[in-house]
């Protein structure tokens, strides 16, 4: 545990990424299994469980320290874990340990204990630790480590340790679990690269750049590019060994549990990149429909029959255990077409190649997308020669979103921001009028405005305060924002019945009287209701 704590401190205080990589490398080389693997998991955020809950820490502290003083201290420090780490008062009957347990012992011990046992063990460790060690433990235990090292930098470090390309690490990473002993055996030269052929793994996805109409459009021709609809579902990766199938979100989260109907229908060996949607009554459903499936970790039979899962396949990343990443898109699309044709499956079809001959056609397609009531978000344009590269390579794929929806909404509440913005009201809740002339909140936004505008809004808020609810400041219902958003969905959690996706402040309508702002009907109309 001491070395883990030293490692975190060193990483935390080091500024340059290169130096961080060196520090991590030294630690991983010098530390035995399984400790180094657990440390790696803690740093890269792959631990799948909390060792203890945040409220346990808080309640332990409240038993030991005057709550007024604790609040003063936390306000000063700005954060709970660090406050506890520094201010922890030794128990009067503290049990002294001869040595601090190793990291893996700590993890095993917490996992083996029940609620009361976890409390006792936590007290015992905190009593025996220095403030930086306590900080390390509290951050580890609640999975709250932020030491300025991205998952990618961590993988880069591993790649450099073995002197291989980062893609090799990426290719096995999602099949491995902490404490990564096979991975280190390979890095140490004591074993082969872990074989992932029988393991269903996530393979990092390729992403598109927003199109720059001036620079990018002139380059695009039907000979060099294809166009596809950008559906408003969620991007998924369907990964199957032929026996076992998993469905991963874009970020590698396993969501197979929510879509067993789709997973069971896959009978090929390969990895497909596509859009997950639902098809009520045989027609592609809205994001709202999909949301009902996403919310259910274990969907019932009737829900699956009402809203069957469906994939529109864009791409193929692997087929029969062979990576297709190094083939150009044109060849991958042919392979995909063949796969979809031979494995006739009503759950999967292939994205349509949209016909176009010039950029005007593309503009028209984009306009058509705006007429679909939100089903289609825009157009994807992809270079036929592009290889499948994880991340966001330049000049390969473009997304051209339809124009956002716009509504005039009234500012209702504001909160202070965090970090640089902590002295400004920068977090806004706004609403639309209902038939009774009441304002109902429809969303929150904290960007879309310039620093200059932020100051002006902040100033307006300070002059128009009404009530305060904890951190939330209510204001006079007088300032109108033109709010842009990508889609709206029905939401039971909001009193207005709607939730906006990706809302941002498009314009501040200093000129517009609040009673001329939009009504909830306008939002319903956008949804085609």
């Amino acid at each position, binding site marked *: 545990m001491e070395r883990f704590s030293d490692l975190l401190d060193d990483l*935390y*205080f*080091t500024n340059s990424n290169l130096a961080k990589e060196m520090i991590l490398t030294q630690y991983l080389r010098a530390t035995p299994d399984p400790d180094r693997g657990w440390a790696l998991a803690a740093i890269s955020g792959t631990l799948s469980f909390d060792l203890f809950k945040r409220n346990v820490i808080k309640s332990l502290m409240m038993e030991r320290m005057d709550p007024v003083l604790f609040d*003063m*201290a936390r306000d000063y*420090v700005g954060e709970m874990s660090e*406050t506890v780490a*520094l*201010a922890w008062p030794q128990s009067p009957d503290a049990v002294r340990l001869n040595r601090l347990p190793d990291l893996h012992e700590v993890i095993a011990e917490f996992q083996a204990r029940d609620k009361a046992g976890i409390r006792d063990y936590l007290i015992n460790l905190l009593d025996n630790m*220095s403030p930086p060690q306590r900080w390390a433990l509290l951050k580890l235990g609640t999975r709250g480590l932020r030491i300025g090292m991205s998952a990618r930098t961590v993988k880069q470090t591993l790649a450099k340790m073995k002197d291989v390309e980062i893609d090799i690490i990426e290719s096995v990473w999602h099949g491995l679990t902490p404490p990564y002993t096979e991975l280190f055996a390979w890095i140490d030269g004591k074993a082969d690269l872990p074989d992932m052929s029988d393991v269903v793994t996530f393979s990092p996805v390729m992403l598109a750049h927003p199109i720059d109409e001036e620079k990018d459009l002139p380059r695009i021709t039907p000979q060099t590019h294809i166009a596809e609809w950008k559906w408003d579902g969620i991007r998924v990766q369907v990964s199957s060994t032929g026996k076992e199938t998993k469905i991963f979100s874009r970020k590698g989260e396993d969501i197979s549990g929510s879509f067993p109907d789709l997973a069971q229908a896959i009978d090929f060996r390969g990895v497909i990149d596509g859009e997950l949607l639902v098809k009520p009554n045989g027609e592609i459903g809205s994001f709202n429909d999909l949301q009902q499936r996403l919310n259910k970790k274990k969907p019932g039979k009737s829900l699956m029959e009402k809203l069957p899962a469906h994939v529109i396949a864009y791409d193929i990343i692997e087929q029969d255990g062979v990576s297709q990443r190094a083939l150009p898109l044109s060849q991958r699309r042919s392979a995909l077409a063949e796969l979809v044709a031979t494995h006739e499956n009503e759950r999967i079809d292939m994205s349509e190649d949209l016909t176009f001959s010039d950029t005007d056609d593309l503009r028209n397609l984009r306009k058509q997308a705006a007429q679909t009531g939100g089903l289609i978000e825009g157009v994807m344009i992809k270079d036929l020669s592009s290889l499948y590269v994880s991340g966001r390579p330049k000049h390969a794929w473009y997304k051209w979103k339809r124009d956002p929806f716009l509504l005039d909404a009234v500012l209702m509440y504001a909160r202070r921001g965090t970090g640089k913005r902590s002295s400004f009201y920068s977090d806004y809740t706004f609403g639309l009028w209902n038939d009774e002339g009441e304002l109902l909140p429809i969303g929150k936004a904290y960007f879309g405005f310039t620093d200059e505008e932020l100051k002006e809004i902040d100033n307006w808020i300070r002059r128009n305060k009404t009530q305060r609810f904890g951190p939330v400041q209510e204001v006079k219902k007088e300032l109108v924002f033109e709010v842009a958003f990508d889609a709206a969905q029905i939401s039971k959690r909001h009193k207005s019945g709607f939730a906006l996706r990706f809302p941002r402040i498009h314009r501040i309508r200093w000129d517009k009287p609040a009673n001329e702002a939009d009504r909830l009907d306008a939002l319903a109309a956008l949804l085609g209701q």
Partner: protein
Amino acid sequence: MQVRPQGLYYVPADAYIDPHDAVGRAIITHGHADHARDGHGEVFATPETLEIMRTRYYLKDETQETGLAYGTRHDLGNGVTLWFASAGHILGSAQAVLEYNGTRIVAAGDYKRHPDPTCTPFEVVPCDVFITEATFALPVFQHPPLEAEVEKLLRSLRALPHRTHIVGVYALGKCQRLMKTLRLAGYEEPFYMHGALKRLTELYEGYGQDFGAWELVSEIPRADKHVFQGKIVLCPPAQINDRWSRRFADPLPTVASGWMQIRARARQKRAEMALVVSDHADWGDLIRTCEETGADNIWITHGRVEALQYALEQRGMKAKALNLIGRDESVE
């Protein structure tokens, strides 16, 4: 005792304690710039503090100086007796003990209870009114032993022998305490020093402190960058990340201060190593000291006043905030 714009004023002796403006009669607890100012008509302080003030040009020819060694009683007239008790803060630092009409008031100035090889330890003086600071008055401030912090620095020197460890320290007190503690921990290399630290270090040496070999950075040719690799360079805190520090090969900016306990503070200073070195009493020592003086009344001058007042009142002591302005916390 009154709080006036110039500072804390003791009526029976017509004297201010550590005033921040020029006054007729001043009692100075110690030489830090936010306590010792120039231009007073009459100054009472320990001989060491007077020496520090002289070195910093705080004493003019016309200033009337009275140097009082620890424990020496002096009649201030009007029935008031003044004497100094050591405060353990820096060389010459003192608590001003004022006795009048059978009442004893102790103005502690800045003080600490942790050991310091460069100054006399704090002395508890039983009193009726104890006037305390509250710089680190929050339960999160529990200063670690200095030896542990010094060990952290030594470990880093061993692990990163190519990097120049640039340690930002305040010129008076912190610099000398850190050097001395490093020597006691067995560090034998010369210290390399920014010019701003020279005169006060020499002053400490004049009082018998031995810091071993040290050299001014400015006296080493610019081309000899390698000299500093794996060594300790001492400079004022503002210099660790500015143009001055760019002359060193692969500098590792380090700050030694009591504030370094708070991670965000350390990051703000862009320190890559944070050494918790404080000249002030920590939370536990503040409360312990207030209790040990047996004072019926505790008056709190500056810092996290509210927290200390609350904690003392919880313990059944009478505590009040004096709300003195003008104390500069950045020097800690």
